């Protein structure tokens, strides 16, 4: 084993400083008293107070959460179905086209996805609003969900499923009682991924939203074009905080389930031996 050199330590320190300092500065200056964002004038939480009185931001936040919740839920259902078809579906007509349509949105520039969906909604005369953003977000995030779920589906031992079928389960029961619990962590992380992708999306939402359905990123973007403001810093701090708590909790929970599962497997093995 080679030693961890001073060069390695420096790269890690500088690398993580680069990744985290900008966000740290943002968080610190959200507690700045002054409206001038680059001059420190003492600690204050007044920008948080102002943020919570800003109706436009609160409305946008509510629209964003609604869109993210529904689109990630639909995307999880559709994406899991698509993953199942890709991994277990066998051959069917147009399978290549299907897998192409699953992978293409992952590499598609957002401006093109947004433009094409908007042109579709106009062509079929659909009024733009929360509904159209949900449809758009579902479409691109179901592809991410399906990639996450299909890698889990491909890696697990299929004989467990076959055993359930042999023991008299209907295919649906086998899926519900055996497959679903096994792929559940991937389905949950797929949902979380879809949720954050939707929360974060500016470009596709800008194309597909209507006048009454401004999302938070659209609001932030139009405010940011006028420069840095302490309210946006406060809002960013709240969003960073939520994500950090969410990701850390999720990884702790998954770590605990993993240790539990490992312990259960060891116990099962010991019982076998007895």
């Amino acid at each position, binding site marked *: 084993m*080679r030693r*961890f*050199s001073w*060069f*390695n330590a420096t*790269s*890690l320190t500088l*690398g*993580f400083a*680069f*990744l*985290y300092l*900008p*966000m740290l*500065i*943002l968080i610190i200056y959200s507690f700045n008293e002054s409206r001038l964002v*680059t001059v420190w004038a003492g600690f204050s939480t007044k920008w948080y107070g102002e943020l919570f009185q800003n109706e436009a931001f609160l409305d946008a936040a509510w629209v964003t959460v609604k869109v993210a919740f529904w689109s990630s839920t639909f995307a999880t259902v*559709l994406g899991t*179905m698509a993953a199942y*078809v890709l991994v277990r*579906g066998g051959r*069917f007509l*147009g399978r290549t086209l*299907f897998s192409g*349509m699953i992978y293409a*949105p992952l*590499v598609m*520039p*957002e*401006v*093109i996805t947004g*433009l*094409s969906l908007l*042109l*579709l909604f106009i*062509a079929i005369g659909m009024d733009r609003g929360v509904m159209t953003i949900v*449809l*758009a977000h*579902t*479409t691109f995030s*179901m592809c991410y969900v399906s990639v996450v779920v299909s890698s889990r589906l491909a890696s697990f031992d299929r004989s467990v499923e076959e055993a359930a079928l042999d023991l008299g389960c209907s295919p649906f029961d086998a899926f519900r009682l055996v497959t679903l619990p096994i792929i559940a962590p991937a389905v949950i992380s797929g949902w979380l991924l879809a949720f*954050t992708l939707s*929360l*974060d999306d*500016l470009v596709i939402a*800008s194309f597909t939203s209507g006048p009454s359905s401004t999302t938070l*990123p659209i609001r*932030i*973007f139009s405010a*940011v*074009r006028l420069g*840095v403001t302490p309210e*946006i810093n406060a809002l*960013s701090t709240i*969003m*960073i905080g939520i*994500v*950090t708590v969410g*990701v850390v909790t999720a*990884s702790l929970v998954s770590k605990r389930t993993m240790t539990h599962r490992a312990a259960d497997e060891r116990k099962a093995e010991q019982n076998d031996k007895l």
Partner: protein
Amino acid sequence: MNIRRIFLIAVPYLWLGALFLIPFGIVFKIALSDGALAIPPYIPTLDFSQGWAGFKDFAGKLDFENFRFLASDDLYWKAYLSSVKIASISTLATLLVGYPIAYAMARAAPEWRPTLMMLVILPFWTSFLIRVYAWIGILSNEGYLNQILIGMGLIDEPLTILNTNWAVYIGIVYTYLPFMVLPIYAALEKMDDSLLEAAEDLGCSRFSAFWLVTIPLSKAGIVAGSFLVFIPALGEFVIPSILGGSKTLMIGKVLWEEFFNNRDWPVASAVAVILLLILIIPIVLFQRNEQKQREAEE
């Protein structure tokens, strides 16, 4: 073929067909239409009520006028070339920044690696827009970077970084860094250290052992990471419009402006079609690389 299986295949298939494939058809169609002062702002529109004659009339009016326009106006040429240039330089810079990080992660004690991985992934979960926004305060003329540099006496005049291509490079490196670090780390982690010892025993200096052994063994990660940065950077809109200046030409921004500011839908669609054609090359190369990787592992 039972009902359940048909249902399982049909639902996601039809969804993607209706909301992914058909919209592309519409983009292609509008790219061949002409702009007009109407709602929707292009002609011809397909009139189903006239049946086949209506369709023939419609198809006859489609032409490549918009593509000829894109070819004749050098704004678009420059925007495409400048996107490729900005994406290439940023990819190279991301590689130079990301490689030492991935290398150090692979060298860290095994019990530390999951934490280091999570620290690299965590920023990816926080809002892209906010991460880009954070750099405005750092790079502006009165920003923190200039304050520090002036305070240290390194410069007298503030450096103009914000609203130039430099800010765009920094923004792309910053936001896409995890995409570069993770594949390289995955490749380096699998590497067998005894190869390096063998190289040194056979008389290689540490540097040439790194150059002749480590770099070739991590090539798959380098290639994958570079594509993962280059492909999205090429069509990037948010970074050039927030950090870049009026002189920063990127095709994603041009498309946006054609659509929202000039309301020229046919030209915006033609720009999209060409962007797609340019992207096909790196995407196909990327998939071929992934496939080779999978075959090598089997």
